[in-house]
């Protein structure tokens, strides 16, 4: 029987959740025995090359590219897991949700105290750039998400236990110490 396939991505995230996945230490040797990775920054596969069993989503949805990637994950993965606070509730990027997009861009590229080189006052406007959304959305408000692993980042033990439970079908232990929001 072939191994279960895992894909991962970081949308509007900081890659901290991916780092936390690497924090499983030597269990990573067991992990590559257990599963095969497809589209993921871990192996640098850019597009889906086969049907995926488990998709791990880090980060919330802040622009049109995030929407596209998230939808392609939903299409290609049997199970989708929101990993971390940003995927679950927007996280730190969602701190901009009370501020109009124009004001954010102005602060970042024109009016901010650290802006020095942009003398012509140009905001990034290339057609190739993804459009910012009006606010940062939790993943489950864009597509159906099956499971949620909270934390900033989620503890390595939580990610590991969830992956093993999903792969083996065994019930998952949830000790008090591993479910944290920071």
């Amino acid at each position, binding site marked *: 029987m072939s191994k279960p396939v895992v894909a991962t991505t970081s949308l509007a995230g900081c890659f901290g959740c991916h780092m936390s996945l690497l924090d499983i230490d030597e269990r990573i040797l067991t992990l590559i025995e257990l599963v095969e990775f497809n589209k993921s920054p871990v192996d640098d596969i850019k597009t889906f090359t086969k049907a995926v069993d488990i998709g791990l989503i880090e980060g919330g949805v802040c622009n049109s590219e995030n929407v596209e990637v998230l939808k392609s994950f939903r299409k290609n993965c049997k199970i989708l897991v*929101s990993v971390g*606070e940003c995927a*679950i*509730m*927007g*996280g*730190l990027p*969602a*701190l901009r*949700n*009370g501020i109009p997009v124009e004001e954010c861009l102005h602060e970042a590229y024109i009016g901010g105290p650290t802006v020095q080189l942009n003398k012509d006052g140009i905001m990034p406007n290339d057609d190739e750039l993804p459009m910012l959304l009006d*606010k940062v959305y*939790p993943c*489950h*408000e864009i597509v159906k998400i099956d*499971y*949620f*692993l*909270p934390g*900033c980042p989620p503890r390595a033990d939580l990610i590991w236990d969830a992956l093993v439970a999903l792969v083996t079908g065994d019930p998952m232990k*949830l000790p*008090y*110490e591993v*479910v*944290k*929001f*920071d």
Partner: protein
Amino acid sequence: MSNLIKFKIDGKECMAEAGKYIVDAAADNGIYIPTLCNMKGVKPKGACRICSVRINGRLMTSCTTPVTDGMEIESNSADIQDLRKSIIELLFVSGNHFCPACEKSGNCELQALAYRYQMMVPRYPYEFPTKPVDASSPRIIKDQNRCIFCKRCIKTIKDENGRSYFVFRNRGHKLEVVLDEEMGKTIDSATAHLAMENCPVGSILVKEKGFDTPIGKRKFDKEPIGSDIKL
């Protein structure tokens, strides 16, 4: 000890002095009923409904209901647990509770309740309301994004004449708890620290204070809220 009465919580025989509120009587018998707006030594008001229990088929707030002889209380059934969890989830989506960036994280009672009930994600959509932060006082930051209107600060943080430093402003969905502008200018350090401590969330912060306890050593890092209540 003549006025001891008998009552039952989830079928367990309990004893308490007549007239005690259910939440305190339960604690005396080693049973934890979660509370959020309630505080020891302060008159309860039953605002948050987290402490709801079922008596005679009706939901009652156990912080405001005195225990009576022969009372049969249902507290830990699945539907009441889920009701409590849904209240926590509502509080999370109706404000802006960014735990990773909050000075109170690890010591926050709302977060601790979410941990205890293992909230993985709220079942309701996030509202992301736009709320102001008032940092005009020299000692205190009042962050409206995190306020849950428990009224604990209004009831406990007072000056020597009994005037509250914090007050309600506006009504309905515009309601907010604000620091009195004039009194905020002169609030002393000890009172400011007490205000931060009495706030169950991170809505009242003392300036230049935060993140001073490492992760793993904060109040609710290892033990769930309510762990102190046992026989």
